[in-house]
């Protein structure tokens, strides 16, 4: 167990590394060592475990569930939410929240579609520049002016939506991405059937994991979320880290929006509504504390997948009335978190 498990270490949950405490060594001694170790590992990784269980069960129940095609469509659909949730993870880890991501996502898409007439570079740069500005505003207002993140990002949620409406003449204009352009390819191309957005999302999560776990910036993020007073007293760059975190969140949301526009071939104005809640839910289900200070980007990835699989399952069940669909997905959510809580070793509440 030498590998420092990049994406899943330490929060309050369970240290992924070896523990010299007798707790970890005892079950191994009692025979069935390997099985016990595996079980122990799985128990500490509640979300992936629930996910694996869910996937196994539903593959048996629904023949069309466990297919490669299904995997491809689930992954590409989730990749956009995943990218947004990655940024959200960083923000939540500092104990903040970013409600603006849904609007910023939509704005990014519209801007990208508009700029795509001049090629792929403007199509990526414009949304990043505008969304980055929004993120910087969020960050500065939170970190420098000391305003509550909830309110600041709620305001920018409105502002980004307003900007989007202004750009699209109150939603009357939909900008289209030129067919066959390099930008469209970015959203629609595949490698072995898996869309580029999936690969981009995975790469970003990899980077995010390294950023969070292996760089001083990441340590500051955890420290601020754990105790921002202590972080200040320890001389960490608290304000700078906060600004950066909101900046990254908006950039990622904008990028996800751009990719989604590339995939949809158009800058759709109605996307992203309520996306912030999905992202927050994925992050929190992924084991990140909403109060900050503990969590992993890997957990978020699992959380996003879990939400997607639940939705897919509801479709597999087939002809559920839409009202029952909500009831079922609400019920599912409870079952999953309860399973997480009771079947698997719960995190010690800090």
């Amino acid at each position, binding site marked *: 167990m030498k590998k420092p498990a990049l994406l899943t270490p330490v929060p309050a949950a369970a240290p992924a590394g070896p523990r010299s405490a007798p707790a970890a060594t005892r079950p191994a001694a009692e025979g069935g060592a390997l099985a016990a170790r595996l079980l122990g590992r799985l128990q500490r990784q509640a979300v992936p475990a629930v996910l694996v269980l869910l996937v196994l069960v539903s593959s048996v129940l629904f023949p069309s569930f466990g297919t490669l095609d299904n995997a491809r469509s689930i992954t590409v659909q989730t990749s956009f939410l995943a990218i947004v949730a990655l940024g959200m993870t960083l923000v939540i880890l500092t104990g903040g929240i970013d409600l603006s991501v849904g609007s910023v996502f939509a704005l990014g898409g519209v801007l990208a579609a508009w700029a795509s007439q001049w090629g792929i570079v403007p199509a990526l740069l414009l949304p990043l520049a505008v969304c980055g500005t929004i993120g910087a505003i969020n960050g500065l*207002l939170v970190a420098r*002016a*000391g*305003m*509550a993140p*909830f*309110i*600041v990002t*709620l*305001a*920018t*949620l*409105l*502002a980004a*939506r*307003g*900007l*989007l*409406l*202004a750009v699209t003449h*109150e939603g009357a204009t939909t900008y289209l991405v030129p067919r066959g352009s390099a930008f469209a390819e970015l959203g629609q191309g595949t490698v072995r059937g898996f869309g580029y957005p999936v690969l981009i999302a995975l790469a970003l999560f990899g980077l995010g994991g390294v950023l969070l776990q292996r760089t001083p910036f990441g340590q500051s993020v955890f420290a601020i979320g754990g105790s921002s007073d202590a972080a200040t007293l320890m001389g960490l760059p608290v304000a700078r880290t906060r600004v950066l975190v909101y900046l990254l969140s908006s950039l990622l949301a904008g990028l996800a929006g751009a990719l989604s526009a590339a995939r949809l071939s158009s800058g759709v104005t109605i996307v992203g509504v309520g996306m912030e*809640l999905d992202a*927050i*839910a994925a992050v*929190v*289900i992924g084991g990140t*504390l*909403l*109060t900050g200070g503990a969590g992993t980007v890997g957990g978020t990835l699992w959380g996003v997948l879990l939400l997607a699989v639940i939705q897919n399952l509801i479709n597999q069940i087939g002809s559920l*009335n*839409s*009202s*029952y*669909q*909500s*009831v*079922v*997905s*609400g*019920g599912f*959510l*409870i079952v999953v*978190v*309860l399973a997480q*809580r009771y079947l698997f070793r*719960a995190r010690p*509440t800090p």
Partner: protein
Amino acid sequence: MTQPALAGRPAALRLPDAAWLQKYGVYLAVAVLLLFNALFTEHFLTADNLRTQLVQVAPVVIVALGMALVIGTEGVDLSVGSTMALASALLPLYLGYGLVPALLIALLAGIAVGLVNGTLVSVVGLQPIVATLALFVGGRGLALVVADGQLKQIVNPDLLALGSGSLLGVPWTVLIAGALALLVAGLVHRTTFGRRLVAVGGNRTAAGLAGLPVRRILCGVYVICGVFAALAGVLATARLTASDPSALGTLMELSAITAVVVGGTPLTGGSVRVLGTVTGALLMQLLRATLVKHDLPDSTAQIAQAAIILAAVYAARERRSR
């Protein structure tokens, strides 16, 4: 208190400075907005118009009051909008037995939702946002199942009277909201439950060690929030003269949380500002009214709304004394 030897030096005189602004910023913002409208909006300072604003804000105020209590315990309740819908959906089913039984059933639904939320938060120990997310998603579905997806016209005269009637010119909904605000203020400041709730929000570990019944308090708070949301659902239904489970209370959770936070209650728990919450709701209401009355297109309206919220909260922000 007499302890001259210990009490430091005489306090510096408090001027209406930054700290003052922080404390009373919301009220100031409301005043400014009222002034603006009085000057620049036609037909604004009429009794009818003011009544309209109050009537529209009443359900938000009621939900926000419950939400403020939840936020005081460092929680949040996303399910309020769905609870409103559920209460609204149940009403027509039982109005045949009269207003009171139907009302009781609706409130019972609120209690049930609160109990589920409260149990998930306090006993199971889930993070409030996840715990209440389940009913946020499922609750509205349940409401639609109950109502068979249909909007139903309300014909019960008692319920309609609740929505449109008034006492001495003050609509019932406004009176109810006002009474609840007083009640919650009393609850927070004058009862053991209120004080303990704030302590639980301020330091849960310490509260537990001090022997407070933390679980019961948490559960109680979510139940109150659920009941308030259900009541708001009933009042909104009465005013709409229809039970509309698909649209009633959508985004209410955001409006309520916004009112609470703009009103100066921190999301980190440990304090509840009741008057601030009411004022926060009023501020948002006036803001929306102003934008509609000046017929701004949606794009401009949203940007303006964002700017004004930021300005108001910026003025009232907490300045750390260093």
